[in-house]
């Protein structure tokens, strides 16, 4: 492993982009320090680091959104003190963000050329849809897309939408495509396809910077991995040096195996029994599932297999269109989320910022919100009692914040997720459902969340974890249920855990011989 830049890489191509000594600080934090980077055509660079390590600052500098305080950025040998958005686009730097910037009311071609539509009829200035479609077609073919330029974006899967974003980048003659957490929302099979697309870009001489928390994918995709920690480039791993442990060691500055602790006791009685539960997404398929006390049941499956819908229905967000739910043997009618929380059925939703917490409220008020009456007398809330609980939660969950009165939105993703969990832990959970609990959060916070989930299970809570992260599903779960098109396609006990088995069930294929029980 060579620290900082290694010139030994035998690459004939000249770097077209070179950053040297780039620095950026914000009030109170050094976001990026003396950063050097060279990007050559056709190179795939993995960029990893915990949240707050400076990745987004680097992206903003490359995109021309913020100007560095010091250092130079050379494009094709021409030095700039900072880029403007225009410079960045002209230099061929394109971004595909985690949250896609698409207009789902338009078709694919219109999205690819948004803001740069081909025109016709001079002064009338109408959009030349024919030309737009014709130009989009070869771009999509280059990416191996299986949809037409006329397809409405709303009808595409997440992975297909990502391809539209990449096509948009290609249409601007991108030389460097920066993919920010592209796989965090993708199911396994589609992730494979994306890695192929990255290979394709590379073959066409386009450089890729691949930012991800999913280290296995970084490992597979990258020619070179750079690691940021606290704004400092702590290391560069060349191709043969890239491995999971080395990246983690650099990211957190020490060795950390995410430890998946085993259950302390065997699983208890059935806590939640779903029989033929139907949701609006799959009205013809019912979910049958027994969730036991003291276990973590992993719910795997492709995105769109109905997992989130099932969770939302159990929590009373969406109506149940048939079937029954029983809690500890007692039939349950769930008309709204209040019915669910009153019985100790809690959900930590997938969309942390939109649903999990109120970004504008202080931490203490987020934690007290679901059970505010408990912190009130005669209907009047007591901020002192709320704060006391928040302080307890802060300690128990290790929420990193100077004070529990700060805006929850100012916390890092991992700490926000802890707040989203803390509000339920402050109550009395019997069934805890977590939808993608560690998406987009850093390794350290992940381990914390796993520890908390195991703690709940050991305390007799029934934990249902929806996850698309294969490593997590296999590492954390005591049993794995796999969903396919609205039903449970199989249940795996620990001795049959394997990526292959989960994947086969997820795509609805027959169970491998002796592989799954149902």
């Amino acid at each position, binding site marked *: 492993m060579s620290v900082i830049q290694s010139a030994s890489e035998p690459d004939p191509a000249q770097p077209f982009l070179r950053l040297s000594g780039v620095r950026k600080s*914000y009030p109170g934090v050094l976001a990026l320090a003396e950063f050097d980077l060279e990007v050559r055509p056709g190179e795939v660079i993995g960029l990893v680091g915990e949240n707050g390590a400076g990745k987004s600052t680097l992206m903003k500098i490359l995109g021309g959104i913020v100007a560095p305080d010091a250092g130079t950025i050379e494009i094709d040998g021409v030095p700039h003190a900072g880029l403007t958005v225009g410079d960045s686009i002209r230099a061929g730097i394109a971004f595909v963000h985690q949250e896609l910037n698409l207009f789902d009311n338009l078709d694919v071609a219109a999205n690819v050329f948004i803001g740069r539509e081909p025109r016709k009829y001079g002064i009338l200035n109408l959009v030349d849809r024919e030309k737009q479609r014709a130009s989009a077609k070869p771009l999509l073919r280059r990416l191996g897309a299986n949809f037409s330029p006329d397809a409405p974006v709303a009808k595409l899967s997440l992975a297909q939408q990502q391809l539209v974003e990449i096509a948009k980048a290609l249409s601007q003659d991108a030389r460097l495509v920066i993919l920010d957490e592209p796989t965090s929302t993708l199911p396994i099979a589609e992730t494979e396809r994306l890695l192929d697309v990255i290979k394709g870009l590379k073959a066409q001489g386009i450089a890729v910077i691949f930012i991800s928390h999913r280290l296995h994918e970084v490992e597979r995709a990258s020619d070179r991995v750079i690691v940021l920690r606290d704004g400092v480039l702590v290391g560069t791993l060349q191709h043969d040096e890239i491995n999971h442990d080395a990246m983690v060691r650099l990211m957190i500055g020490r060795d950390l195996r995410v430890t998946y602790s085993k259950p302390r006791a065997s699983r208890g009685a059935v806590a939640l029994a779903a029989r033929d539960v139907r949701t609006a997404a799959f009205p013809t398929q019912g979910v049958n599932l027994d969730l036991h006390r003291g276990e973590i049941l992993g719910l795997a499956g492709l995105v769109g297999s109905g997992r989130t819908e099932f969770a939302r229905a159990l929590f009373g967000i969406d109506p149940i269109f048939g079937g029954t739910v029983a809690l500890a043997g007692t039939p349950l009618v769930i008309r709204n989320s209040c019915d669910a929380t009153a019985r100790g059925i809690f959900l930590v*939703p997938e969309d942390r910022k939109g649903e999990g917490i109120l970004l*504008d409220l202080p931490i203490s008020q987020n934690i007290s*919100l679901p059970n505010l009456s408990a912190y009130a007398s005669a209907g009047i809330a007591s901020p002192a009692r709320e704060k006391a609980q928040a302080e307890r939660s802060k300690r128990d969950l290790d929420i990193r914040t100077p004070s529990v009165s700060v805006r929850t939105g100012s916390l890092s993703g991992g700490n926000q997720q802890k707040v989203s969990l803390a509000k339920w832990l402050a109550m009395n959970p019997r069934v805890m459902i977590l939808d993608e609990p560690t998406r987009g959060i850093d390794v350290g916070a992940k381990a914390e969340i796993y520890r908390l989930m195991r703690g709940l299970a050991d305390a007799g809570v029934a934990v249902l974890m929806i996850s698309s992260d294969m490593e997590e599903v296999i590492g954390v779960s005591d049993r794995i249920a796999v969903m396919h098109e609205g039903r449970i396609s199989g249940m795996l006990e620990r001795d049959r855990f394997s990526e292959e088995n989960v994947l086969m069930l997820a795509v609805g294929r027959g169970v491998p011989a002796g592989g799954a029980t149902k």
Partner: protein
Amino acid sequence: MNKKDLGLLVLILVVGIGVFLRNPRFLSAENLANTANLIGLFGIFSIAQGFVIITGGIELSVGSMIALLGVLFVDMVGRLGVPWPLALMIIIVLGLLLGLAHGLLITKLKMQPFVVTLCGLLIYRGLARGYTADATAGFPFGSEYPGLDFFVARPFGVPTSVFVLAIVGIVTWVVLHRSVFGRYLFAVGKNEDAARFSGIRTDLVVIAAYVICAGLTALAAIFFAMYTRSVQPSGHANFYELYAIAAAVLGGFSLRGGEGSIVGVILGTILLQILQNLVNLLGIPSSLNFGVMGTVILVGVLVDQQWGVFRQRRRIREAAKMTVIPRAE
């Protein structure tokens, strides 16, 4: 009272002093009592509007509701001979029911607040005019209703509407800023999804906001009916919903929901009424009334926002200067 409210208070004082210097009659007992009375009347339904705006909704039917309920009240007491306390109860209940209807349409049938209450604006005005066939509803000549004078009385020279506003203000302040329900209102306004995912019955919270709004509006309707003594259904309380929205916006409410304070909306009402008064006292043609009001609201909100942006930038610049940057290894 936060900084925003303080700024508004300063503006009110500045405008007040300005008007006083140009026309000392501004501070005469008579003028003060009249203006205070209007502040009381407008304040009640502006607070009401605040409850709806805090949820991210809007209530456009306020003016028409005041006209319809006013016509019904005067007609019940004046023509049908219903004892006024009973009529008052009926009007308040009717108001609550209208609010309930709005709330149900918005939450259960997922209609947009703007559409529901715009239709309310048209329907209630139409009903008010249809009910009297466009005639003015009034009390029979020379009739007396002992007790009804309460609404227009001025004990110690202070109009009762001011006392009522004070009580409504204190109660709603506790409800909005201290109670569990108030917290729910803010939560729903900030992010309804996140509130629902916290086990809050957001539908009930929103319905309650519309019911409270309409109930207070009904109370204001009776005050207005007694203030004008007769209700001319086509013109009575026209555009009052806009006064209420303006007062709330001036008072720091965000039309996106989740922001606002009772003190703010009351101060907003006071400023609007002083502006009205200013137009009268300074001899500005009353036809320019809305022009003056609109300009002040526009400038006020603009200055407030730009000031906020300026302060934030300055804070960042200061902080950037203060930070000592450690050398990277």
